[in-house]
């Protein structure tokens, strides 16, 4: 096993056991699931009260109940608002629904109650209005109007029928989802690189380690280890998200031919992996320049903003998905994966743009490895001291420079 892989493996194993990693990997999605599940559970447990209604339009038929999927909404008709309010005050009904006389002119129906109506009740009241107003119509007409338009989705570029419902959402959402995961991975993973480098220096084992391995291999090993860690983390998240989507849409998805956007997945791999390395290397470089962990985290925060940068341009990209800004950001290494994938969800991105973007990314990556290793070599024995901009330039321009004895200059 090469020394670079040894460093990567050691970094990976050490960080994998850390509480921060475990909390972020499993805790964060758990919190999100719990936060998302609470309203759903509340809704599921909400009981539908008996509701009184007043039809001031005179167009609704008399209704006593509305059939829902698993429950029924019991309705009590009142001839006027006063009678309904009396019943509400007496506690005979849980709420009073009023369809105003000028409803057909655009006025909104009113619902009086001491508690907020649940989504289930709102849906039931909507059905009650439809059923009441169409009381003379055949059942099929009422049923069709409950879901008046079932769309067929066609791919703009090929004209092929894609699928319907959740399947098409998945197809369009995958590139966007991957772009979002990439941004998240930068926030949680690449941002930690700076701290990792500062810690490596702070442990004061550097002088021993550096007589065993070259600075370039050490930096590359650290970045590789952290990247593998991020891949693990993102893998857990994607697996969790995929499972959640499957469980949630299981019934809708069964029997559907789901169209997996393999092209987007391939380019996601080709753009995201080197771009992640690039961000991680930048993070490592900032850690090398920073004097301590606090400064490293502050600088890493700036890196996070760069990672999020493409999100600020999304509006403009949607309006001109093949415009110069969109193409420029697809080629720019720090925005290439996010914008590239986002555009792939909206349009057919020309292959040459993706290939050029990939090559620029690789070039930037090689330059970064050289740059960071050079600065690292110059500063690896500086403890708790921040590097000045002029010193960064000196470190890059002078081969084998070390500021290890900088205190003697001052």
């Amino acid at each position: 096993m090469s020394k670079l892989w040894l460093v990567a493996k050691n970094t990976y194993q050490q960080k994998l056991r850390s509480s921060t990693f475990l909390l972020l990997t499993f805790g964060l999605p758990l919190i999100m699931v719990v936060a998302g599940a609470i309203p759903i559970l509340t809704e599921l447990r909400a009981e539908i009260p008996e509701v009184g209604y007043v039809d001031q339009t005179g167009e609704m038929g008399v209704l006593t109940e509305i059939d829902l999927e698993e429950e029924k909404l019991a309705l009590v008709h009142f001839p006027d608002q006063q009678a309904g309010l009396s019943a509400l005050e007496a506690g005979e009904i849980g709420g009073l629904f009023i369809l105003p006389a000028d409803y057909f002119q655009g006025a909104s129906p009113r619902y009086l109650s001491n508690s907020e109506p649940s989504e289930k009740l709102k849906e039931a009241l909507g059905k009650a209005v439809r059923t009441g107003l169409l009381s003379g119509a055949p059942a099929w007409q009422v049923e069709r109007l409950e879901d008046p338009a079932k769309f067929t989705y066609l791919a703009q570029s090929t004209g092929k029928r894609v699928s319907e419902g959740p399947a098409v959402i998945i197809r369009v959402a995958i590139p966007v989802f991957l772009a979002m995961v990439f941004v998240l991975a930068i926030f949680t993973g690449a941002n930690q690189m700076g701290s990792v480098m500062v810690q490596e220096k702070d442990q004061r084992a550097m002088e021993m380690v550096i007589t065993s391995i070259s600075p370039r291999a050490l930096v590359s090993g650290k970045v590789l280890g952290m990247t593998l860690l991020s891949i693990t983390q993102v893998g857990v998240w994607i697996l969790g998200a995929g499972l959640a989507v499957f469980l949630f849409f299981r019934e809708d998805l069964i029997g559907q031919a789901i169209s997996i956007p393999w092209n987007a997945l391939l380019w996601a791999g080709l753009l995201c992996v080197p771009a992640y390395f690039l961000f991680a290397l930048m993070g490592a470089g900032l850690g090398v320049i920073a004097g301590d962990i606090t400064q490293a985290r502050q600088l890493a925060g700036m890196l996070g903003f760069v990672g999020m940068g493409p999100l600020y341009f999304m509006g403009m990209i949607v309006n001109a998905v093949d415009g110069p800004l969109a193409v420029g950001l697809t080629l720019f290494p720090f925005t290439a994966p996010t914008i590239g994938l986002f555009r792939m969800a909206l349009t057919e991105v020309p292959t040459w743009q993706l290939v050029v973007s990939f090559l620029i990314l690789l070039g930037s990556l090689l330059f970064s490895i050289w740059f960071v290793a050079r600065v690292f070599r110059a500063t690896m024995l500086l403890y708790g001291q921040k590097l000045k901009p002029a010193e960064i330039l000196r470190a890059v321009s002078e081969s084998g420079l070390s500021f290890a004895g900088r205190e003697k200059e001052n």
Partner: protein
Amino acid sequence: MGEKNVFLKIDSVAKSFGDVQAVKGVSFQVHGGEIFGLLGPNGAGKTTLIRSALDIIKPSSGEIEILGGEMSEGKKSRIGYLPEERGLYDDMTLWNTLIYLGRLKGLNQKTAQERSEQYLRELDLWEARERKIQALSRGMTQKAQFIAGVMHEPDLIIIDEPFSGLDPVNTRLIKKLLYRMRDRGAGIIMSTHQMVQVEEMCSRILLINQGEGVLYGDLQEIRSRFTSNAVEVDMAGEVDQVQGVEQMTPRNGGYHMVLSEGVRPEDVLQRLVSNPDLTVERYERVEISLDDIFVQVVGGEKLNGSGEEAV
């Protein structure tokens, strides 16, 4: 010793940091099978020299040959280093730390495990192997770092203050290992302020001061150059003044006498013996310690004798 046995050759090496010249054209050689003492006061340039030799920093001028040529990645596995700056990975266990550092030095997993066990047992750390580094005492960490520096059994070992923080028992254990490595043929450079250890262990030394080599060569030969011009005398009887004695100080029930320049100790002894009021019980020439030489040279006092030129 022949050129073939030269494990480290430093030739006119100088290093500047900005306007400050930390090392000024120092030259020396270290051979296989010897323990070489690198001495000097704080800030003399010892660490800069060591870091230059190990290619951690580049010298401003001069040439360095290590294990027969320029430093290369391949040679790193043949060099052991215990730096002045102490530190290991706090969150790792002692065992994992040694395996990791041993493997970085080119050992395979099995050998790294075998050597770790061997050295941990020898240095009485075996029971602490599953403890995290941060939970070890200073002395234990010191020993752990020593193991990490030598477990790959390198040809050239550079150790900076190997005995600091160690009790006499552990000092003996480390010494025993160093002797074993020397006997195996390794060249060992020991940088320390503990002159007693240097006198006991080193065959040759380099003393640097303010970046310049001021004493270099065989330790016994250097000591012989710094002959003391003082004697210790135990005697019965009273005497106020002795001819040829510049200064006479009572010490430990006897006298410490500093002789005048050009006066031989045997002349003074003859005068004392020939005095009927005195009975000389002990007359001993004071042998100068390396500690005294260090203070004398670094303190800028006149060197006694011509000796070897500063390097």
